[in-house]
């Protein structure tokens, strides 16, 4: 897709292609399910979640399958986005200015590209946690199928799985907060794929400059 094609009519800019959106939601929906069932297994106080999600055995059965889809989606995100997620000098500056970002003083932030440093962190955080969840999950899924399974591996897996999941929950809460509440328009962007130019300019000025520079005036 050429950069020009990203400039849409009505002052909109294409932020996510259909493929990206489908991938995101594949991950998103499965993550929600994994979160619900996972939390059920995490604490007796939340065990009702497993019941609510179709029954305890069903939850246990589907959790790993959902996990596979989630793993696949995140892996595909990696394939799609990894080159855009490299850490830059701007990102370093962004982290230093984090307090402005968190207090909504976005004008004091160094210009962000398509993804700001926080998003990159989210990406890499999910990527690595996903790997850990996958590996530990495989151990825990059906240990009896694997001749090489060992109790030690399973015990470590239990810990790793829980710890990695906790980490993603932290990421996920911020991601959800940012996407749903903090940045108006972000949620729409993963639904429709586009954002307003204002949004782009405000949150991802460097990225907007990049596409707008090529096509000086948006098509009307």
């Amino acid at each position: 897709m050429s950069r020009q094609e990203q400039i849409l009519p009505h002052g909109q800019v294409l932020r996510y292609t259909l493929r990206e959106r489908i991938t995101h939601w594949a991950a998103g929906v499965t993550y929600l399910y994994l979160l619900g069932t996972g939390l059920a297994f995490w604490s007796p106080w939340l065990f009702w979640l497993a019941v609510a999600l179709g029954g305890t055995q069903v939850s246990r059965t589907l959790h790993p399958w959902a996990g596979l889809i989630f793993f696949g989606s995140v892996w595909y995100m990696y394939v799609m986005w990894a080159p855009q997620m490299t850490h830059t000098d701007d990102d370093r500056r962004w982290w230093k200015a984090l307090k402005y970002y968190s207090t909504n003083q976005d004008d004091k932030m160094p210009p962000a590209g398509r993804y700001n440093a926080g998003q990159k962190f989210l990406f890499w955080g999910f990527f690595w946690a996903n790997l850990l969840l996958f590996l530990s999950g495989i151990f825990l899924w059906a240990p009896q199928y694997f001749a090489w399974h060992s109790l030690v591996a399973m015990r470590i897996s239990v810990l790793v799985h829980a710890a990695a999941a906790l980490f993603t929950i932290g990421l996920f809460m911020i991601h959800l907060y940012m996407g749903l509440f903090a940045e108006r328009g972000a949620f729409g962007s993963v639904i429709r794929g586009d954002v307003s130019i204002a949004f782009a300019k405000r949150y991802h000025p460097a990225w907007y400059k990049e596409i707008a520079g090529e096509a000086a005036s948006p098509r009307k």
Partner: protein
Amino acid sequence: MTSPTRRDFLKLTTVGGAAAALFGFDLKPAYAQLRTLKIARANETRSTCPYCSVSCGIIIYTIGDRAKNVTPQVVHVEGDPDHPINRGTLCPKGASLEQDILNERRLLKPQVRRPGGTDWEDISWDEAISEIAQQVKKTRDDTFIEKDATGHTVNRLESIAFSGGCTDTNEFNYLIVKTMRALGVVHLENQARV
């Protein structure tokens, strides 16, 4: 579409909690579901283990209460705690006697393998008994020895052998002695020797 509002955020957090009620699941698992004692009302027969010579007392549990309309089927075999020697204990063979009684490899019908035959053929009991009796008579009449070389009466039959098994009861053994000695059989043998 519109982005969610603050109200939505609050709403979301309560949905989960209500979900259980919404979906109508019974959240209470059943605790302590005990299997009931499988031999509680089974019929008990006192018997003796057929394996080694300790002769452990065993109890064979069969379904039904001896009512007419029940075909007994063994559901369990266990040691007889009253038995002075084994006091309820059993060895791995005695403990698996249920599998000996209910064994799919059991022979269920008389069979015969004819001279030169390459497989078993079915035969009725009446035919089998009658054929065997004729074989016995023929062999006996052909080879019976009334007097030996020194002229002593011996009345013996050296051409038929009988070997009795280890779980033959005394009473059956007595019938063997009675019938076989009457035929003149001297090749009379039992697991007792080997």
